[in-house]
């Protein structure tokens, strides 16, 4: 079978759950003798825009569409890109795939689906986040808060903020940047534009919400049209399925199927014994991942028999990092472990007794949670998004209410007081779906589509 996997970005430059899943799926499909190609973009490329770079990555053929999303001129370009369409047409005419499987469509173009549909190619999409529903793909607002219930108005307001504040990273409003910048007149012009947009924009555009509602509706219409053309839509979690069903869309066939994960790293997994109970946080040090909630809870813990290990990159958000550092300096028994390579994950978990996942956004079966469960390490997680699908509180893990450090502290203390519960929970953790099993099911679905 000739299978084309399409992802927004890909390894090794971009590392995330979707990229890792696409990689593992491609590797498994290839191992089973299928002809697999991967098409993705580099959205922050410095190479010639819309050139195609062919690469090999760990035995897989990767084609990267070079583009720069900072140069977008309007909102529509974030989901329609005719230059990407042209590259895609050439690509599928050359490769002639039997199945196209999208693991993400961001930075690409919604048109790809209708182009392939006209050619009669069977198409599958896995929806890994909310990008199809809203431009806020992870449902976190510009203020960093959780975007709980989807609404058109909220979406339009957020869009108005986004479009009126301009690209943030490229023109920061600070004096140091001004001194470094060579083209001072140009910079001042941009600053003036930004400030006037903020002042005028908020008063006039806010009243003029209809303009943004139209933009939102146009995007939603196009997404719904795209979804209706897909032959199979897969949701990796029940939570995403529920959120999309409430939002309302139609497709030919829709299933819920958990992602498989690479189980090989945990084949010979054994725990390193320790006298202390080792809690761990593993993830990026950004507000959405909620390390601050864990640290505030940790301050309330009064026990010498415990330690908290923090794995993650610190320099992603400077303001947040400094607030985290001050929280850490006030706490005891914290170990900063830095980052690790993906293949070292089992090694890391061998020295962890309980994982804490304090995210304040809607996680959708994150890899760190799945790997923890694979190693039978109980997890304390936010009672949010898909977390309760994996954690059956109090059978095999614990859940705490979002943003509630007291609740989290209670859950941590419960396990410190009754350490035997950790072992009991560990035994009740269910088997995790392997990428082999997932690929087997997917191939069955692919074959059914080709027969119909």
């Amino acid at each position, binding site marked *: 079978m000739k299978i084309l996997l399409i992802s927004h970005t890909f390894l090794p430059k971009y590392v995330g759950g979707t990229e890792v899943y696409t990689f593992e799926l491609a590797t498994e499909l290839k191992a089973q003798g299928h002809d697999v190609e991967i098409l993705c973009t580099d959205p922050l490329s410095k190479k010639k825009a819309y050139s195609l770079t062919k690469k090999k990555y760990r035995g897989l053929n990767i084609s990267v569409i070079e583009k720069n999303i900072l140069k977008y001129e309007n909102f529509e370009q974030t989901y329609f890109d005719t230059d990407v369409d042209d590259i895609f047409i050439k690509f599928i005419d050359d490769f002639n795939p039997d199945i196209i499987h999208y693991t993400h469509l961001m930075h690409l173009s919604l048109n790809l689906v209708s182009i392939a549909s006209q050619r009669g190619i069977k198409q599958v999409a896995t929806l890994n986040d909310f990008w199809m529903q809203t431009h806020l793909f992870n449902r976190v607002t510009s203020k960093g808060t959780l975007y709980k219930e989807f609404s058109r108005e909220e979406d339009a307001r957020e869009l108005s903020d986004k479009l009126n504040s301009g690209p943030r990273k490229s023109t920061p409003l600070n004096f140091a940047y001004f001194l470094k910048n060579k083209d001072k007149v140009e910079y001042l012009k941009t600053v003036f534009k930004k400030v006037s947009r903020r002042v005028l924009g908020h008063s006039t555009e806010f009243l003029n919400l209809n303009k943004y509602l139209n933009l939102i509706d146009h995007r939603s219409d196009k997404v719904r049209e795209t979804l209706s053309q897909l032959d199979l839509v897969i949701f990796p979690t029940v*939570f995403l*399925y529920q959120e999309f*069903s409430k939002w309302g869309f139609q497709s030919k066939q*829709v299933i819920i199927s958990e992602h498989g994960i690479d189980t090989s790293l945990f084949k010979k997994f054994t725990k390193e014994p320790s006298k202390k109970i080792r809690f761990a946080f593993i993830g990026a040090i950004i507000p959405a991942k909620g390390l601050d909630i864990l640290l505030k809870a940790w301050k309330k813990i009064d026990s010498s028999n415990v330690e908290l290990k923090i794995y993650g990159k610190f320099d992603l958000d400077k303001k947040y990092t400094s607030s985290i550092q001050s929280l850490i300096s006030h706490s005891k028994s914290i170990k900063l472990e830095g980052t690790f390579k993906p293949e070292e994950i089992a090694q890391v978990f061998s020295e962890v007794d309980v994982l804490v996942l304090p995210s304040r956004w809607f996680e959708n079966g994150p890899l760190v949670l799945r790997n923890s469960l694979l190693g039978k390490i109980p997890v304390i997680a936010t009672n949010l998004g898909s977390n309760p699908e994996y954690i059956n509180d109090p059978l095999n893990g614990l859940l705490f209410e979002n943003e509630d450090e007291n609740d989290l502290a209670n859950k941590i203390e419960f396990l410190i007081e009754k350490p035997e519960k950790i072992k009991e929970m560990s035994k009740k953790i269910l088997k995790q779906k392997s990428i082999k099993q997932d690929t087997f099911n997917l191939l069955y679905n692919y074959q059914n589509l080709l027969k119909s």
Partner: protein
Amino acid sequence: MNTKNNDFNSTEYLKKKISKKKKEVSKLEKEVNAKKKDIEKITSSKAFSYWVLFNKTKSDIMRNIYPKLLLDRGKTLLRKIKVDLNAKNYITRLENVKVSKNYKISVVIPTYYAESFMPSLLKAISAQKHIEDLDLIIIDSESKDKTQEFAKDFGANVLTIKQNDFTHSLARNIAAKHAKHDLILFTVQDELPAENTTFAKMAELLYLDQNIATVSTRQIARPDADIFARWQVDNHNQALDLNYDSISKINDFNKFSQESFVLQRRVSLLDNVCALYRKDIFTELNGFTEVIFGEDLDYAFKVLKKGYKLGLVCSTGVIHSHNRPAHYFLKRTFVSSMLDLDLLSAVDDSIVINPSLDLIAGLTISEYLSSKQTLSEFSKDDLREFMNKFKFNDFKKSEIRSELSKLILFSLESTNLDNKSISDDDILKYYQNLLNMLDNYLKKHPQIIASIKDRFGFLEKMLGTKIGDTLAKYCLSKQTTEVKINTKILKNILFGYV
């Protein structure tokens, strides 16, 4: 290049130029001819003639039928106002419930080959918030797949019932006896709660008042529901006005029996797709009565007659719908209409009974449609030719193609329905009305994308329900005098050999 420039005025050059132009002209002529052929092809096609016919019939409808439709709409509006006014006697409208505490519930799910539903269903159940303790009881009809294994891994209490013994009432009654908690939630294997507070919201409403015996919720169509399944769910929610949380109670049963069908249906709404029951009242009323179908509606009447109340939470819901073939809808609607009408004993003045037209139009069209691949092939001449070939009386003799037609014939025989003369135009108009119904629905829901194939499927399934419903009403109207419909016939139709 230079030589060409030098010969710029030579005869040879001009000749060449002329022949080049001639070639261009002939090329253009060819293109024009091709376009002409294309246009001819389109105008001579059946699709085009259908399109013309469609527009002609439409203007015909505008002139002749539209005034009548307008009058009908006025009547419907009046009836709705009357229903809304009368509804206040039975239904208390509530603010949307907000969950204030945690609950303990027992969940009962009858299963049969549920392997493909179990992983997501169990996840959705365990993700329910504000549930202090959940005791899951699975009653399985001898599935040979992994249904029971999944349930056991989850820690569920797994009971079995022999496939031959299974009825919706019996299976649920057995399982309810094993429930640990005071609240029992009955649900089905192929639904998913729409959100993680669905169960808790239902429990919150149930505890508002000691006399509320059950709380059910509304349904939301699955994303892969076909147009007909979508229409069914949306139409049901709209017709019964399932837009707010409420409690129903009947004080005067005599007065209630005079109310319209829609109001009776709304007041007695209880849907076992997902419904929460108070165990003490369930025991007091001896659980579900042994009926072949509609054990929930039957229970709702037991509750109301005892003076208890029924709750309904519309601020949440369950994702549940089915894509099924047309003949299923005929059977299902026939049986459910029989039971609804029987139980509710209401005279529904909103639907004019014209069994002959429904049945014969249905018979003709379903048989016609089954012989055609796409709707674009459909033309008026085709239909006339077809109807000449298959006059009603000949149906029994001729070879029947569609499954739906077989059912109609079977039903016709069991009801002794007389044939009345129906003109071809009547049938065309009937057909047109069904299409208009779909168009109206699509206008109200512009986000729905309907291909010709989808519209085609809608028509066939719509016919199934219309015929089923008409047959039921006809049978019930004859029941006292001529035809006695017994449970055996109903069972045959529902589970039956046809």
